[in-house]
């Protein structure tokens, strides 16, 4: 395997599985014995931290089985010992699967570890599964086992451990041109989030109104609701913005005043259309674009496919 491959920069799923196969073929790799023998001090700290009041461990001079990992943990100051899992995790990190979450941990206890024993871990890379689509994002499940051996090579405990290494979903850059919304206008933006074009409607006289406001422009009633527009319209006027640059926008872009058959006008961008084909009178239909993780804007596309 070349250095380039090891960085994982160009690693495909196949390369990852190939690496996983090689690491599995290494079989069990023994690490160095734990730095300290199983001891009462550490056991007492652990029991206190866990809130375990059972006096049997210290009375009999044995460690709680769930402490198995503790005896061979690398600690803060010592260099980590290499295991066959490391290269796989590093390749996944380099491939952008930088997120990690533990998904499974099964432990098997053969006997209690006794005070004075020094344990040695043996790590075996087991499997790589993926890529899989998960709620967290695309990722690979990485599984390995660790067996802790006593000085006579008898197994004391073992553990199957599995993590999901995932590619974190990229949060979209927040779109800088946010509308303000208030009590009189929030229903419109709420509608847009649900892919509905809501037009304010007077519940007393039926008059439609856009942009919305607190009162009916016809009878001044504050008793208002909305109707959902058909989503059709025609271009009433439009501009093509070239200069100056506008944050969050790529120039040139088209902004239009669109007239709706419901009898109101609304401003929006013309999309899915060559700029030189936009015309006053052009039939358009509403479409929705998510500008970032929060904002959806209504936009307008030609009703007849033009491009």
């Amino acid at each position, binding site marked *: 395997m070349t250095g380039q491959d090891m960085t994982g920069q160009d690693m495909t799923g196949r390369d990852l599985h190939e690496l996983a196969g090689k690491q599995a073929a290494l079989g069990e790799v023994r690490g160095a014995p734990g730095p300290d023998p199983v001891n009462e001090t550490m056991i007492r700290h652990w029991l206190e931290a866990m809130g375990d009041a059972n006096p049997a461990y210290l009375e009999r001079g044995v460690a709680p089985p769930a402490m198995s990992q503790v005896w061979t943990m690398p600690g803060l100051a010592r260099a980590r010992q290499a295991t066959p899992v490391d290269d796989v995790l590093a390749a996944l990190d380099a491939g952008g699967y930088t997120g990690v979450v533990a998904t499974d941990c099964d432990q098997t206890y053969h006997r209690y570890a006794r005070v004075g024993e020094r344990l040695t871990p043996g790590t075996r890379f087991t499997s790589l599964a993926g890529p899989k689509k998960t709620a967290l994002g695309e990722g690979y499940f990485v599984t390995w086992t660790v067996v802790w051996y006593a000085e006579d090579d008898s197994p004391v405990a073992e553990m199957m451990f599995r993590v999901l290494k995932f590619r974190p979903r990229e949060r979209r850059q927040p779109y800088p041109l946010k509308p303000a919304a208030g009590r009189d206008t929030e229903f419109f933006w709420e509608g847009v989030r649900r892919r509905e074009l809501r037009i304010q409607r007077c519940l007393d006289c039926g008059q439609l109104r856009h942009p919305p406001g607190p009162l009916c422009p016809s009878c001044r009633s504050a008793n208002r609701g909305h109707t959902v527009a058909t989503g059709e319209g025609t271009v009433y006027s439009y501009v093509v913005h070239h*200069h*100056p640059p506008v944050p969050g926008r790529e120039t040139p872009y088209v902004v239009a*005043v669109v007239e709706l058959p419901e009898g109101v006008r609304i401003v*929006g961008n013309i999309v899915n259309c060559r700029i030189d084909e936009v015309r006053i009178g052009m039939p358009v239909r509403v479409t929705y674009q998510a500008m970032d993780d929060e904002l959806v804007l209504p936009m307008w596309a030609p009703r007849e496919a033009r491009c």
Partner: protein
Amino acid sequence: MRSAAAVAGIGATEFSKESGRSELRLAAEAVLAALDDAGLAPADVDGLVTYTQDANQEIAVARETGIGELTFFSRVHYGGGAACGTVMHAAMAVATGAARTVVCYRAFNERSGRRFGQPDARLGGEPSSQGLEMSWHVPFGLMTPAAWVAMFARRYMHVYGATSEDFGRVAVAMRRHAATNPAAWFHGRPITLEDHQRSRWIVEPLRLLDCCQESDGAVALVVTSAERARDLRRTPALITAAAQGSGSGQMMMTSYYRDDMTGLPEMGVVGRRLWETSGLSPRDIQTAILYDHFTPFVLTQLEELGFCPRGEAKEYVRDGGIELGGRLPVNPHGGQLGEAYIHGMNGIAEAVRQVRGTSVNQVPGVHNVLVTAGTGVPTSGLILSAA
């Protein structure tokens, strides 16, 4: 109020792209220059008026210039639309006795400081009535003055058959006038219609040369009673009529939801008021100062004010119609396209010079000058006359 008050003094800084001085200093320089022009002292001033988007508070200007107590101060809303409104407020204060001498001012580093032509993402950010209004437009990138005007211009072209060249004729006229005005930024730099047509798109259908420049500078005007003005150093420019106007369904630059998008109803309101209260008509105007931040609205104003029927301004501006020597010379100083963009205040100063007969581009036989303020917003207008 008719002819009760007059503009007795005008003052200005140089017009540049980089004043190198604070906006407050520019304001103070222009105010002192205007008082000097009128032959008055700061101690004579008891009123100050400016308009929104000016960074200099009235009290700060008073402190810097040595103006002491104020009995009248007012800040007129809606940006450039308020230019003539400042003079109206000053004239009302003088006519009612609220103040005796009022100075109107505008000062900014609009090129080297905050540029109004640049997009400002905060425009739609607040749920104030204006923020909510902007929120129907800003999220779609419709957020520069050129873009807001272009939307009207496109509809106007569609309905009346006006072309980019028709807009270009306005720019050519303004630059011709500026070319012979030493105070103008574009002094000595006229353009041709071909130059206009070759200039790059800003927001279609507007080209670079359809858009006024951005400027640093300040202008101030001294308003006092007509009677007192007669005894001062300069020939007074009588305030024959002054009006503010807002149309129905009015918005800031984006009144796209009214029945028609080819007019400027708010300027129609101003025009009707000016003609009614003065008893004058377009025939009585020898030269007009029409707000020219963007060329298309000069055409619309000619129509709204009654200089020509609707849709016919394109013919009106052909063959040098609004140039010096034409049927109605518009903006002999070069306007904001040619002289400077001081939010219309420099145009009022030119109207005063035309009435006095002292402009570098003097129109012969001037008796009445019509002046307008910012278009697309609630606006204002004046008729200034020789005594």
